[in-house]
């Protein structure tokens, strides 16, 4: 079981109990705070003997002095046979008022430590604390995994509202929650008798009753006359008790006066350091027991867990206690969202009985849809089919055919969930009679690493000696037709009738309303003057959309438009096409609008649809995060390099540069009159200090400066400076441009013994290429 499973299932189950403990704990923190208000602290270095003297002057029949963790002094006494408990001002012994142990009803404390179930409940509460500790440890592992290590722990959190609440709050309170669980366990261990705190049995001590002495004549003057033994012997005034003179009130916990009725009774004093017994007549210290290590640990645990005597800490604990509810709620929502989004294969046959196994590696989830289509078709043909994720790859005795449906993520990597699949497969042996394993790749030809992961799988499988029913086929852009053709080949190879009719699943979309559009004439330069139709059509527009208001409940459930930042992607679903098109976002959620820069591509279904929109028109869209490209919060220099519509996400970065980090923009276009997208805004941002420097080059005008990579070469010195200062680089534009920029920068950085690939490895260089 992985950390994620531990975290999820402990959180969902025992988390409910943790909520009860957290909330009741938060309420209990009221006590230390309230007590701190009403406690006059003892002056520094006040000897206990002096305090006793003051108290005996003002309180008759004092039996016990307690120094509460809050700093308050409470005296227990008997007024006749009426027990009294009063706050006393240590400065003068003045009685301040009656003492009350707690402002809260008892049941709150009992709920917190035993769920009102007595000893059994204490075990349950201790178990909950243990589970909470495990939840905290697993949370730390998952947090580090999610954020990408300790250095990036403070980075911006992405994802749905519930995820962000969970992670952001977790980052803040995790350490305190962990400490609370640990101290709860310490306290449980001593309460449940698993650890002994006492330093052995108490010593058998008694005051040595002296013969009647001449001193008794002075007894009337003694403040302690009431404490004199019944036989009339003279007890020593507290001011003469050596131990009490040497102890300060700061260290005092409790002092018991010798009982009036028992001549052999002693003084008993308890401090942070231990406890001692004093002869009431001679004033000698009869015995001293140091506090055990276990006792000291328990004392510390008590302070850390309850905030007693540290009201600020109590406030922190209260907030952390209450946060458990927040974690539980957001955790439940996250679990529910994950369940909703998880691939749901219907009609799955148990693995051991299946003759056909389908393994899936999917990034966005669409490959699961293809797997379902394949599963349904094969099941109809009478096969028993089992579909699962690629990391489960295996074959069993009943297996006759295996299909691997693999998408590729980013620059040829495996989808996150299948990141170890290659290693797993490389360790497996196909056995004596290997079953055929057929690989079907999914990808996009626009990327150079088209189906690279599927190819790596194919290579590994063949290398291990698995045969294939069909050669590797790579499906471009989730093409249903290509998938159907592969199905025909499959039907032939299997010798069965088989039709793969795939109806793709589209993510839940939100209707965005176009609010403003800003048109740029044909970037080609000839477009305006009655050129050919496609040239005139090749215009560009910056489209600004708004999204419908969303209630908190809907957002928590992950409905509606997800939060996004500049650099993330918006998927546009065009009517009549199942395959969404993605555009880089030039704005963030905070900006209050969603902005993209769209260039009309000849024959492009989606761009044509978008270019045809008028303000007030709707478009179906969803958000896909682009975590590798998004800009981390930083004060380091940021070098932004963009060409054409590729400036869009970079403009979004600059727009949100409220901290005025030094951002440097290299913009490449063709003609400043036609395609200097965001031009006026960029100039404004330059004036506002959101943008530090701007270099523009235009390739189609005389003395335009050439291409953006030419500008980089000219600026080599400055670029090296920035990179030395730790600059982050973001490149957005066409594939050829990105390639040119990388080559130019490799040359620029060579004197620093640095390269683009090194910067990429350090996550300081990222491209968004189309």
């Amino acid at each position, binding site marked *: 079981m992985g950390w994620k499973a531990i975290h999820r299932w402990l959180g969902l189950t025992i988390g409910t109990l943790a909520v009860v403990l957290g909330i009741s704990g938060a309420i209990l923190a009221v006590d230390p705070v309230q007590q701190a208000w009403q406690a006059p602290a003892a002056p520094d270095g006040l000897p206990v003997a002096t305090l006793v003297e003051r108290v005996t002057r003002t309180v008759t029949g004092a039996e*016990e002095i307690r120094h509460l963790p809050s700093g308050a002094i409470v005296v*227990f006494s*008997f007024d006749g*046979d009426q*027990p009294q*408990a009063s706050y006393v001002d240590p400065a003068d012994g003045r009685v301040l008022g009656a003492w009350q*142990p*707690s402002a809260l009803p*008892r049941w709150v404390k*009992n709920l917190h430590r035993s769920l009102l179930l007595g*000893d059994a409940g204490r075990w349950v509460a201790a178990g909950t604390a243990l589970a909470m500790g495990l939840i905290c440890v697993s949370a730390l592992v998952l947090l580090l995994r999610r954020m990408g290590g300790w250095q990036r722990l403070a980075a911006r959190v992405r994802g749905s509202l519930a995820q962000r609440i969970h992670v952001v709050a977790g980052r803040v309170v995790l350490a305190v929650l962990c400490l609370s669980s640990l101290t709860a366990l310490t306290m449980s261990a*001593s*309460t*449940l*008798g698993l650890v*002994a*705190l*006492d330093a052995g*049995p*108490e*010593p*058998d*001590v008694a005051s040595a009753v002296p013969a009647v002495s001449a001193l008794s004549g002075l007894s009337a003057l003694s403040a302690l006359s009431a404490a004199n033994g019944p036989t009339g012997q003279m007890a020593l005034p507290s001011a003469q008790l050596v131990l009490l003179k040497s102890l300060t009130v700061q260290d005092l916990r409790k002092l*018991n006066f010798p*009982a009036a*009725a*028992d001549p*052999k009774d002693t003084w*008993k004093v308890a401090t942070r350091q231990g406890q001692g017994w004093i002869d009431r007549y001679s004033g000698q210290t009869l015995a001293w027991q140091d506090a055990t290590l276990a006792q000291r640990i328990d004392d510390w645990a008590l302070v850390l867990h309850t905030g007693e005597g540290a009201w600020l800490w109590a406030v922190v604990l209260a907030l952390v206690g209450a946060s458990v509810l927040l974690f539980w709620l957001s955790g439940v929502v996250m679990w529910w969202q994950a369940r909703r989004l998880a691939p749901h294969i219907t009609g799955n046959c148990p693995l051991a009985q299946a003759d056909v196994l389908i393994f899936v590696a999917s990034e966005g989830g669409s490959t699961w849809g293809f797997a379902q289509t394949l599963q349904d078709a094969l099941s109809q043909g009478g096969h028993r089919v089992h579909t699962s994720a690629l990391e489960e790859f295996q074959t069993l005795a009943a297996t006759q055919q295996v299909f691997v449906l693999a998408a590729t993520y980013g620059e040829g990597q495996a989808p996150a969930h299948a990141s170890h699949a290659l290693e797993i497969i490389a360790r497996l042996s196909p056995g004596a009679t290997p079953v055929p394993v057929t690989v079907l790749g999914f990808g996009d030809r626009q990327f150079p690493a088209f189906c690279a992961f599927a190819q790596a799988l194919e290579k590994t499988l063949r290398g291990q000696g698995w045969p294939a029913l069909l050669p590797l086929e790579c499906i471009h852009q989730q093409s249903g037709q290509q998938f159907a053709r592969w199905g025909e080949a499959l039907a032939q190879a299997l010798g069965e009738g088989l039709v793969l009719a795939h109806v793709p699943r589209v993510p839940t979309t939100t209707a965005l309303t176009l609010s403003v559009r800003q048109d740029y004439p044909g970037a080609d330069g000839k477009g305006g003057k009655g050129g050919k139709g496609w040239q005139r059509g090749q215009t560009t527009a910056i489209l600004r959309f708004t999204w419908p208001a969303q209630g908190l409940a809907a957002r928590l459930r992950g409905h509606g438009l997800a939060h996004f930042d500049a650099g993330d992607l918006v998927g546009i679903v065009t009517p009549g096409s199942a395959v969404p098109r993605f555009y880089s976002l030039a704005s963030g959620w905070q900006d209050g609008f969603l902005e993209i820069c769209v260039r009309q591509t000849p024959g492009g279904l989606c761009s044509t649809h978008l270019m045809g929109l008028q303000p007030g028109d709707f478009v179906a869209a969803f958000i896909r995060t682009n975590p590798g490209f998004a800009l981390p919060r930083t004060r380091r220099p940021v070098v932004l390099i963009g060409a054409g519509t590729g400036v869009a996400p970079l403009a979004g970065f600059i727009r949100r540069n409220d901290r005025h980090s030094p951002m440097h923009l290299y913009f490449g276009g063709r003609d400043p009159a036609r395609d200097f997208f965001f031009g006026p805004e960029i100039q404004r941002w330059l004036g506002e200090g959101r943008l530090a420097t701007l270099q523009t080059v235009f390739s189609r005008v005389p003395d335009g400066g050439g291409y953006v990579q030419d500008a980089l070469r000219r600026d080599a010195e400055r670029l090296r400076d920035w990179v030395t200062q730790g600059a982050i680089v973001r490149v957005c534009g066409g594939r050829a441009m990105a390639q040119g920029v990388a080559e130019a920068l490799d040359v620029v950085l060579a004197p620093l013994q640095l390269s683009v690939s090194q910067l990429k490895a350090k996550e300081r260089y990222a491209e968004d290429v189309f």
Partner: protein
Amino acid sequence: MSKPLLTLLAAACALALPALAHSRQVTLTAQLKNYGGDGAYLAAYLTDAKGAYVRTLWVAGGKAKYHKHLSDWSRLSAGDAKRLDGVSGASVGAGRALKVTAELADALIDAGYEIRIDAAAEDMRDSPLEIRVPLSAANAGKPQAGKQYIQSLTFQLE
């Protein structure tokens, strides 16, 4: 001879020898006040004419961590390793009554022995020597009030 050993010897004599001769059953009933707190810890024990600990009759409240709050009993009985053997039970809730029985030798009655109870409740004031009642036939059946926690303590001799 050390004091704990003496105490132990005394206890052994007091318990074992007279028991052979003749013993009586004592029933203690302690009715608690509604003091408004958690269950009270109570230690009922017997002391001799000199105030020395003889034996523990009953300890209500099972958590050793809190036994030091029954401070007189805790100190006096420190030498009695078997002080909890067979004579401990749950703490007693506010307003509830504790009823326990013990076998006592005839010789202990009207011989200066006392029944003492220490009491304590969490976050409240400890009450060592909450109540002391001479173990005499004349006192049997007469309710006595304690200092803080005990409304009335009655013992019956059979």
